[in-house]
């Protein structure tokens, strides 16, 4: 490596600067880490190619087993039986758990997985452990993800016969910036450098842009703008994007996402089949884990079958003499999961509204992810978008990873003589970013769906006479109250010149640069004075670390409303 031996980067720096010294830039690989499945792809010089593992699989199960001395993941591991994953020794669903605290409902919903997810409900990271030789061995989602990524990396290096460092990773739309830092941490642990983190549907949008570009070349037609609605539902997350594509450029118009997915469908169904299943398995004994695993496999299998048949017979022996035997039909499945489907519908409507687009504007509707096989979802999306047919030139399970691989090639500066990499995605912010003000309200400074890079500012003022300090608490999300949002960090502005309340102008500026790094700048001005009263503060966010859930509460307890801020009329 010709990199300097010692480089001091900022403590909060998780990515590091890109160093491109070689004449032949390394092509970044695309990785799609799904909640249940994972895939890896690369631009091979003429097209995107999915890499296969030694068992000839393009889709690898996302899990890590802690059975032997060396943990092994779904990339290399040969499963003797599906139930092995469910024996308590394997950790999966890490994408759902990463960067979440133990008060998060998503973590709570994970407590009836076969491995141990323990919550103390105080806002710290949950205790996660795998059962190894009858001992609960603790681990973290980051560690599990890193082990998995190392396997993926080794597999890719072996096939490509070169070291792999740069990656483009796809992420759910609803991931907070704090969760992104956890993903970055896992990648760093695996020796990977993240070139880009792409919201999943935007990766699909890039693939769509390339396909449209090709059709234009072939038909020599005028490449008019096409609006695509992309709906992605995987095991853990649901995302919607609207993109406007022309000439290989896809401008994301709006994003919407939520933590709903196949995992919820599965849990609702298990609850339906065995109403007391949660309490039945809460003590995590050996026998309970085993029968939970059996139930899980049977239910999952039934859901898959219900995509093609209208009814399915479930017969499963749960051990201890209890046996489940039931005929389930498709209507039942849809009924049980009605709320989930309603949420999907709302996400699409919200996304259309945010994009300021009408249903008639949509050229193509693209359904991807495992959920795209569910008839109810297909009909629901077709219904909202008033389309008879869905776009079917995209493989629903491979679309995201292919898009990531394209982005990997584009961002690595690779060009293609046939113009196949003449592509660009212009991203928007998936969540609003703002601060706490006007009481306990979340006041967004950069609203969601703002084109990146972005810089916006808002003026705030003090709430008390002679208030000389103010607390700037930065949140990300869509909730009206701060507690409904993700805390990213906080800092105190000190040395505000004493003045009546409402007089000092506290300008809070947020800046997201081209590498998606968020910085917050705060300056204080007294009207009539030409210079900022105190040095401007610049903070790179997020600054919160693990166990941050209680921070906001602690701040509130210590300071109450004494350091509060309120909004001043917005400037344009």
């Amino acid at each position, binding site marked *: 490596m010709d990199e300097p031996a010692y480089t001091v980067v900022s403590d909060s720096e998780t990515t590091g600067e890109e160093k491109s010294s070689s004449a032949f830039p390394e092509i970044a690989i695309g990785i799609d880490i799904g909640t249940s499945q994972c895939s890896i792809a690369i631009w091979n010089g003429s097209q995107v190619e999915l890499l296969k593992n030694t068992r000839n699989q393009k889709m690898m199960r996302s899990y890590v087993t802690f059975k032997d001395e060396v943990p092994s993941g779904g990339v290399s591991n040969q499963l003797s039986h599906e139930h092995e994953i469910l024996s308590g020794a394997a950790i999966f669903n890490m994408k759902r758990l990463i960067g979440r605290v133990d008060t998060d409902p998503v973590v709570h919903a994970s407590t009836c997985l076969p491995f141990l997810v323990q919550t103390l409900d105080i806002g710290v990271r949950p205790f996660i452990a795998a059962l190894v030789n009858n001992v609960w061995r603790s681990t973290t989602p980051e560690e599990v993800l890193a082990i998995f990524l190392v396997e993926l990396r080794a597999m890719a290096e072996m096939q490509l016969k070169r070291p792999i460092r740069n990656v483009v990773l796809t992420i759910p739309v609803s991931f907070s910036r704090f969760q992104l830092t956890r993903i970055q941490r896992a990648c760093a642990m695996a020796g990977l450098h993240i070139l880009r983190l792409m919201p999943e549907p935007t990766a699909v949008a890039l693939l769509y842009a390339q396909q449209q570009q090709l059709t234009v070349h072939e038909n020599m037609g005028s490449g008019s703008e096409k609006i695509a609605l992309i709906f992605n539902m995987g095991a853990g997350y649901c995302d919607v994007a609207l993109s406007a594509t*022309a000439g290989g450029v896809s401008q994301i118009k709006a994003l919407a996402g939520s933590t709903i997915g196949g995992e919820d469908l599965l849990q609702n169904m298990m609850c339906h089949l065995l109403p007391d299943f949660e309490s039945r398995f809460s003590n995590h004994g050996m026998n309970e884990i085993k029968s939970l695993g059996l139930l899980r496999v049977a239910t999952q299998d039934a859901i898959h079958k219900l995509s093609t048949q209208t009814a399915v017979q479930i017969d499963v022996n749960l051990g201890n003499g209890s046996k489940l035997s039931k005929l389930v039909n498709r209507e039942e499945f849809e009924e049980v999961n009605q709320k989930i489907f309603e949420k999907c519908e709302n996400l699409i409507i919200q996304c259309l509204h945010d994009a300021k687009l009408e249903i008639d504007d949509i050229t193509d509707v693209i359904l991807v992810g495992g959920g795209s096989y569910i008839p109810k979802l297909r009909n629901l999306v077709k219904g909202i978008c008033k389309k008879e047919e869905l776009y079917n030139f995209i493989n629903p399970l491979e679309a995201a990873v292919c898009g990531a691989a394209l982005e990997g090639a*584009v961002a*690595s500066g690779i060009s293609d003589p046939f113009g196949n990499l003449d592509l660009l995605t212009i991203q928007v912010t998936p969540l609003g970013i703002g601060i706490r003000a006007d009481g306990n309200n979340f006041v967004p400074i950069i609203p969601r769906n703002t084109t990146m890079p972005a810089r916006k500012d808002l003026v705030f*003022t003090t709430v008390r006479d002679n208030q000389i300090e103010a607390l700037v608490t930065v949140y990300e999300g869509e909730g009206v109250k701060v507690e409904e949002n993700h805390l990213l960090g906080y800092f105190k502005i000190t040395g505000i010149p004493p003045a009546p309340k409402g007089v000092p102008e506290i300008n809070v*500026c947020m800046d997201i*640069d081209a590498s998606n790094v968020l910085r917050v700048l705060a300056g204080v001005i007294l009207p009539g004075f*030409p210079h900022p009263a105190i040095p401007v503060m610049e903070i790179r966010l997020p600054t919160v670390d693990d166990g941050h859930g209680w921070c906001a509460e602690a701040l509130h307890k210590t300071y109450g409303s004494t350091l509060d801020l309120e909004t001043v009329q917005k*400037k*344009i």
Partner: protein
Amino acid sequence: MMNKARKKLWKAVSDVVGRTLPYSTSRRFETYNPNNSSQSQTHFLNSLSSSSQLQIINLCPPHRFSQNVIFSGKNFCSESADNSACWNCNAVPKAAPFLFCQSCRTVQPLHQSLDYFQIYGLDKNYEIEDENMERKYKDWQKKLHPDLVHSKSQREREYAAEQSARVIEAYRTLTNPLSRAIYILKLEGIDVNEEETVSDPELLTEIMEIREAVEDAADSKALTEILSPVQEKLVQWSKSFAYAFRNQKFDEALNCIRRMTYYDRVNKEIMKKL
């Protein structure tokens, strides 16, 4: 490198901090009593547009210190911006605007003198046909976007970040009728004080009624019904502005802008609730 980025940010915040100075008006009427109609109206007017304090503040001479900060910050760009040739290969540009060198495919430094209309190859008219705007926007982004110069030099990456941001800003400004109106007047040397009030009681009553209706609106259908007349008004005043501007009646143009500002705010509020 880190330092430079920091300096740039600082420049930005001082720009921002400085810019807010002359027009600042605070919304401090947090605890108004809805039963007291006169007070509620004060509150309403304040949040609507500007307040009585505004005039007082406006009497202060505008502080222009921030401009120096901005200009000194632009040194890095302007040194080569004076040159009309490409900073990288010295090729003379074939076509204006010169944001990107066709010969060596390199992003050029920012030219402050270039206005938004020029960037989009438009004549300096208020009424623009925007069918091609999105395409031009995408064409520029495809040449200038920071994502595409990831493997290029630090210098070019900075140019790309600036140019790309400016193309976005230009697009945003020109595609919105109100911001386009404000911008085109600014190019004529007329600064629009957006906080200035309109003393037309009819308009104020109308706006207040719309707001009340928005408050009372039960569902999105009711909101949509309020929305369409507001948007019609926006279009109407936008047309009046175009006429006034074409005939160089700048006072009338300013009046149109103020009215558009009111409707635009209500429009945004309704959109937010929808």
